[in-house]
């Protein structure tokens, strides 16, 4: 059933994103044509202005695509699971956790696809198909590659983690006791988001504290700052590059694990609220 739900959610979202990507493609295409014309007829002032305007519109559209994608995916969770369409979704013979996972997986995928589309649109609009990240990867050694991969994983995991914060907040706000209307539930969701964010920051600080403790000794013992500086100084020396890379690997790994665990924790909260405290308006 999870596969069918993912197919269903993809069908809904593809109708929105298909249109958005088509518009982005057209704007990037127009910018590309104007750029090419500008390069051949660089004495024509009108073409220069036209290209600049098209490029500004293209960049604004790129930002709108990214921001719009995130807003759409979050709003879809609320509209499809907690408002009128929830009457259909929650009466399907599927457990609440599958409804949640389907939204999280498809939402993450479409946001990543949006980022890729924006990068491609940028490349097309500027007629520059050179990607600096590929050069970094090509020139990196094994240790640096490991750091780049771990950083990439941490960045990737931040997407579902961020989504899961919003999903948990909406799940709490919309399943709160009482027969509040939609506006009340949205307000409760915003309040829940504040608490969820605070919880995430507290977990982040605890994780950082544990990381520093592991690297430099207990944070409750005296002279913490001196110990941190001492550790950093040992990595500053020539030949200590490996130690610094190791440090970065541990840091990226810790961030990734923390982000993943937060994502799971918020997911558990959202699923628990939807399965035990569902309160459709």
């Amino acid at each position, binding site marked *: *059933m999870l596969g069918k739900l993912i197919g*269903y959610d993809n069908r809904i979202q593809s109708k929105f994103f298909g249109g958005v990507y088509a518009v982005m493609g057209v704007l990037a295409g127009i910018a590309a044509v104007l750029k090419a014309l500008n390069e051949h007829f660089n004495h024509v002032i009108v073409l220069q202005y036209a290209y600049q305007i098209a490029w500004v519109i293209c960049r604004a559209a790129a930002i709108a695509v990214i921001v719009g994608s995130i807003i759409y995916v979050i709003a879809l969770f609320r509209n499809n699971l907690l408002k009128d369409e929830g*009457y259909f979704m929650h*009466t*399907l*013979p599927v457990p609440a956790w599958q409804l949640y996972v389907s939204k999280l997986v498809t939402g993450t995928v479409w946001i990543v696809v949006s980022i890729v589309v924006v990068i491609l649109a940028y490349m097309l609009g500027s007629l520059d198909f050179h990607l600096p990240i590929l050069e970094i990867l090509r020139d990196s050694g094994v240790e640096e590659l490991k750091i780049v991969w771990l950083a990439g994983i941490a960045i990737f995991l931040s997407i579902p983690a961020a989504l899961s914060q919003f999903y948990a907040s909406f799940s709490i706000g919309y399943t709160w006791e*009482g027969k509040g209307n939609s506006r009340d539930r949205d307000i409760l969701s915003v309040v829940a988001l504040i608490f969820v964010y605070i919880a995430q920051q507290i977990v982040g600080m605890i994780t950082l504290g544990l990381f520093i403790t592991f690297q430099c000794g207990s944070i409750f013992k005296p002279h913490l700052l001196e110990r941190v500086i001492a550790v950093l100084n040992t990595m500053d020396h020539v030949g200590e590059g490996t130690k610094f890379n190791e440090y970065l690997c541990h840091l990226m790994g810790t961030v990734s694990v923390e982000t993943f665990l937060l994502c799971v924790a918020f997911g558990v909260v959202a699923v628990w609220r939807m399965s*035990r405290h569902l309160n*459709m308006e």
Partner: protein
Amino acid sequence: MIQCEHVKKEYGRKTALADFSAEFETGKIIGLLGPNGSGKTTLIKILAGLLTTEEGVVRIDKKPIGVDTKRIVSYLPERPYLSSAFRVKDIIRTFEEFYEDFDKSVAEQMLQSLHIDTKSRIASLSKGNREKVQLVMVMSRRAKVYLLDEPMGGVDPAARDFILKTILNNYNEEACVLISTHLISDVEKILDEVIFIKDGELVLHESVDRIREEEKKSVDALFREVFAC
């Protein structure tokens, strides 16, 4: 088929259902009747799995409300609930994917008789046609329980007749059908039993024939008497 034992549901300080107990058998069309705010929709939502209860036990086919009961329950809410991003044929596909008891050919036949093109977008349909599409989808299932919440609310008399005809012609005769409505005189002719509910409590649970024989009045007349303001 459906068992409710001492069910209680509160919204904050307001009690929607108070110690509600009833049993509904298979092969019956049961009218759930009561004034506004009496708890009819609350009860139906609990049976559909859209609300959780504070107290009490609710079972359908001897199972607690959950994935297994949703498999055999066909629910029609009183509001539009299908995604407006889809076309009618997408909705048919979705019902076919998720419900093993969904009969695609029955759905397509009913839509054809209503002159609703399956390529139409849900968003482009009128309110009445959207409600008809929802009803067609729900009644095209060979479910064991049908929960219909105000199926005739806000539609014209001709459409009400169509809805009643659709329910009668397409429901699984071994199923239990629970209809919540205000339009008692319209629906009375198809009901086997009625439940009167007031302030979240069961006031009456009786067969329609007994009401007519013993009370010598229609269900509509009895309702007006019981719930007189």
